[in-house]
């Protein structure tokens, strides 16, 4: 044990026992961030803030919510919305934040794709981030079910039914997941457990892994430049702050991040107060009825693109399910589908640049058509867009990046 002296203050007392000064250095004041990154790099910290907002608002909802098929609907729509003081505020905050977190996740993801931040040493950042996306999806889905309205109920029915596509044991798996022959009370209570305990804990662990995975290869920058962090750190500590290409995370970098969070929060609370309805499906204000399907089922906007891939192969449920399965995991393999290892922003890679915007466009088309009823021309547009999504990822991306590599990297 280290020698413990009489402390000259609280910080010193803690430092002798917990090493808080060293910890602050490692985590904050000597954690180096490149200078040439723009506001798009602040999305990570916006996500952290949004997740905190979700946890806090969730805790307040949790105190009045009843995870029981008979009481759930009224506990949300009567108790929380009508009786609890500011209950409506917590609900709107929770619902809007759940939707906004996906907006920011998608921006965060596509910034990483645009600047090649998934490549060459940063694969684990990408993979842990994609794991977060998947668990966030499960978290959003399990939460969507809790108000026990019609859309909640049928979303749960459709999604749990997807497991019926597993060969041989599909139907047993579906009944096992539901705990009943249909989505019922047992399903609600176990999804409640997943939503309020197991998945949030997994998310928190994954956030820690995601942050840690950033520490060794460091944050990428706007030019994909490889920085010698140790040399740049030395310059900064010697006082050559202008010459150094890095800045400390705290307080220099975070001050800019906090500005972005503040701007975002103004927008966020504008939505919460004036446009919360976009995160509330009107069908979900009918109580769940296991014997009547709403005429048109669709998921929340952030799942529409993969939903459209699922039903895009309108002539075969099995093909649709396979394509859907691929769409769920294909992003994980991005670092290996992109066969050019040089890190550069998309506008320095002409073919990749076109590919990037095609993917964005295709996802927008899939999202729009995922919401439209599957009739007439819609099914063909959905089919073409689904095919395009798979082809762009599995065939086009490896080809253009192999060509790029043969030409000797980026221009």
């Amino acid at each position, binding site marked *: 044990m280290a020698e413990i002296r009489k402390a000259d203050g609280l910080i010193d007392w803690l430092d002798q026992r917990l090493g808080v000064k060293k910890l602050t250095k490692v985590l904050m004041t000597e954690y180096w961030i490149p200078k040439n990154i723009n506001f798009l790099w602040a999305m990570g910290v916006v996500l952290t803030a949004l997740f905190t907002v979700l946890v806090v608002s969730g805790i307040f909802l949790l105190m009045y919510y009843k995870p029981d098929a008979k009481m759930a609907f009224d506990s949300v729509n009567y108790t929380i919305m009508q009786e609890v003081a500011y209950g409506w505020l917590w609900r709107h905050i929770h619902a809007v934040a759940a939707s906004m977190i996906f907006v920011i996740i998608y921006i965060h993801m596509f910034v990483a794709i645009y600047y090649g931040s998934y490549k060459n040493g940063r694969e684990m950042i990408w993979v842990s981030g994609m794991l977060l996306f998947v668990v966030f999806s499960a978290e959003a889905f399990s939460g969507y079910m809790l108000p026990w309205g019609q859309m909640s109920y049928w979303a749960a029915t*459709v999604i749990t039914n997807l497991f019926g596509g597993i060969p041989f044991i599909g139907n047993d798996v579906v009944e096992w997941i539901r705990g009943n*022959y249909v989505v019922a009370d047992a399903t609600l209570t*176990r999804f409640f457990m997943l939503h309020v305990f197991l998945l949030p804990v997994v998310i928190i662990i994954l956030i820690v892994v995601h942050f840690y995975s950033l520490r060794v290869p460091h944050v990428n920058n706007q030019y994909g430049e490889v920085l010698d962090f140790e040399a740049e750190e030395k310059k900064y500590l010697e006082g050559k702050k202008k010459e150094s290409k890095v800045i400390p995370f705290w307080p220099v970098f975070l001050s800019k991040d906090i500005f972005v969070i503040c701007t975002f929060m103004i927008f966020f609370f504008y939505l919460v107060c004036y446009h919360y309805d976009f995160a509330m499906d009107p069908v979900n204000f009918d109580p769940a009825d296991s014997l009547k399907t709403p005429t048109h089922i669709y998921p929340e906007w952030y799942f529409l693109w993969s939903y459209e891939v699922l039903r895009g192969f309108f002539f075969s449920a099995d093909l649709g399910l396979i394509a859907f399965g691929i769409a769920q995991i294909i992003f994980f393999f991005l670092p290996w589908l992109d066969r050019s290892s040089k890190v550069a922003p998309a506008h320095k890679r002409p073919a990749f640049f076109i590919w990037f915007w095609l993917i964005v466009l295709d996802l927008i088309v899939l999202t729009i058509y995922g919401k439209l009823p599957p009739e007439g021309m819609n099914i063909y547009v959905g089919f073409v867009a689904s095919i395009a999504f798979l082809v762009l990822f599995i065939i086009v991306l490896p080809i253009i990046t192999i060509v790029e590599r043969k030409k000797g990297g980026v221009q």
Partner: protein
Amino acid sequence: MAEIKRRDFLGMTLGGVTAVGAIASLVAMKKTWDPLPSVVSAGFTTADVSNMKEGELSQVEWRGKPVYIIKKNKADPFNPQRDFKIGEDVFTVGIQICTHLGCIPIFHPEEKEFLCPCHGGKFTLDGINVPGTPPPRPFDIPPFKIDGTKIVFGETGAEYQKMIGKA
């Protein structure tokens, strides 16, 4: 035979005990999520069809799922795989859940077909999926037994076994 030392023995014992414990825990966890005995045992529904008119559809709930019963017109063809007789009357039954993704299709008596609005799935009067629409197979037929003019869902009777070809 290789020599087994005391430490190897301890290691193997520890590994064995851990494996048994892990498997036992997984089994327990799996069974905790299985449907409860009360859910499994409450799986019978009886429907009296003596008052049904020809061409009419009635619905009963069985194991939380909607089951339709149609009394077919005399003019409609008889499909031994999907239809059965009570006396002279022809009936057809099925679980009215789309075999695509589990929505509940709506019956349109004029067109004599079921239409699932979610993904455009169609089924004929006999509950057979219309080719070119998403559902991969006909409506499932729930096990049933005929008891006079009543149909008991959840029990397996001779007519059911004949229909699914296991009699």
